[in-house]
């Protein structure tokens, strides 16, 4: 008994330690989302929430059902691999109801350099230009047709 009385204070510290641990577990219980770890190291419910979000992109094949001509032009040119909405932005609403939802106008001075600005980090064979020098201050559209950008005919300049 005497032994216990003299080491009882160690239990006090152990109790403090246990309290901190208990507090941690209680807080953890409340702040960690219920579905955490359901499938992996993330919140399982996130999948459902993401799936429930509205769709913003219609997809190129949807555009092509109405804009047949442009789709064909593009398909024949150098931008064949670049999908409509990569430039025009998400247009699911427009595709669903073209009469009331007008796509915003694009500014080629900003749009084209997003992909074509020269950078040493891009693959060598990707077409890239130092925009300011190359365009001489004109917007890209003056010389390049966005849907078929390669310049073939002499009249293009």
């Amino acid at each position, binding site marked *: 008994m005497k032994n216990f*009385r*003299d*080491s009882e*204070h160690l239990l006090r510290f152990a109790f403090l330690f246990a309290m901190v641990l208990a507090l941690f577990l209680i807080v953890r219980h409340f702040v960690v989302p219920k579905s955490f770890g359901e499938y992996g190291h993330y919140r399982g419910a996130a999948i459902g929430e993401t799936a429930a979000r509205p769709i913003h992109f219609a997809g190129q094949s949807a555009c092509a059902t109405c804009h047949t001509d442009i789709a064909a032009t593009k398909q024949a040119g150098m931008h064949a691999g670049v999908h409509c909405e990569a430039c025009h932005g998400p247009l699911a609403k427009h595709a669903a109801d073209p009469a009331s939802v007008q796509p915003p106008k694009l500014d080629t001075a900003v749009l084209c350099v997003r992909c074509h600005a020269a950078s040493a*980090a891009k693959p060598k064979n990707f077409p890239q230009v130092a925009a300011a020098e190359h365009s001489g201050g004109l917007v890209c559209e003056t010389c390049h047709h966005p849907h078929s950008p390669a310049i073939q005919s002499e009249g293009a300049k």
Partner: protein
Amino acid sequence: MGGVEGYMYPNEINLYWSVLIVVYPYVTGLVAGAFILASLVRIFNVKEVAPTYRLALLTALAFLIVAPLPLLLHLGHPERCFEMYFTPHDTSAMAMFGYVYIWYLMAVLLFEIWLDFRHDIILTARSSKGLKRAFYVLLSLGSNNTSEHSLAVDERAGWIVTLIGIPSAFLLHGYVGFIFGSIKANPWWSSPLMPVVFIFSAMVSGIALVLLVYMFTTRARHREIDMPCVDTIARYLLYIFIIDFVMEMLDLVHRIYVADESFRSINFMVHTKLYFSQIVLQIYIGTLVPLILLGIVQVTRLSPSLRKAIYALSAALIEIAVVSMRWNVVIGGQLFSKSFLGYTTYKIGLITHEGLFMAVFLTLLPLAFLWVLVKILPPWPELKRGMNRVASVTMP
């Protein structure tokens, strides 16, 4: 692009790990080092060092409290740090470290300090009134037993805690080296010697710091500096510093000898951008000078006042060496391109949240904490009321 020479990948141009990531391993290193000094007394029975025992523990605590701050300030979302505790990823060394930190704080440092000061806390509580009394009763966790046997229990438990504490301190700081050492994409960091070098430099910096703090506080309190004590600390400092230096040189020689594809790049850096911080500050001024000074003390008989001056100077230089070592590792590792074709420049901010002022502030902040801790729990050797573990210290 400003500050870039040659070819950098786009993601290498700006440094992500700023000066705060330099402060962080420095501060944690001081914790580990101070604790190792304390363990010299407890475990290795180096009696001469006893006057610094409690001071070393409080120093370790003050720096440990500040240690996470540079990391938190570096984060874009510091409030998310708790997620590391709540939902740790078991493959992440950083996540595991959160627990090492808490373990070290709660189970080792706080417990050991509490055990060592319990007697004093109870005596202070008994001799004071009102709020102060309530505060000390709270600190004592309500324990009020000062019998010989209970103090012996403290002593025994403290010994065990220190025994567990030594590997914990190594883990705490070895981890920092481990993180750097295991970044295999970066040849400047990726080295299994990294944790070892970090631990030894940590011990050196922590011991030097406690030496400085001890000499300064003793001076400030108009007491005599205990010469056998500082002599012994300086001797251990020298030994450990030699090991540290040898380890770092081993790393260097190994790099030079292996001379892998990164060597040209690293070699160039050490001779240009890192020349001042690595060669001049870290090796010449911060390492060779104190090694020679401390070595001279060992082989000659100098007067106490000269020895004290040498110790203070050496300890200060050693701190410079360790800070520059952290700088060279953290910043140096981000200055060159993985393509080995280019170099960037680190532009340190002044009053930004990751700037120079913040770094200096965070390095000095622990001293403010230490000041408070010392007010609450005076660690001075002449006040040690409990069992007189220290034979050489007599009561005033």
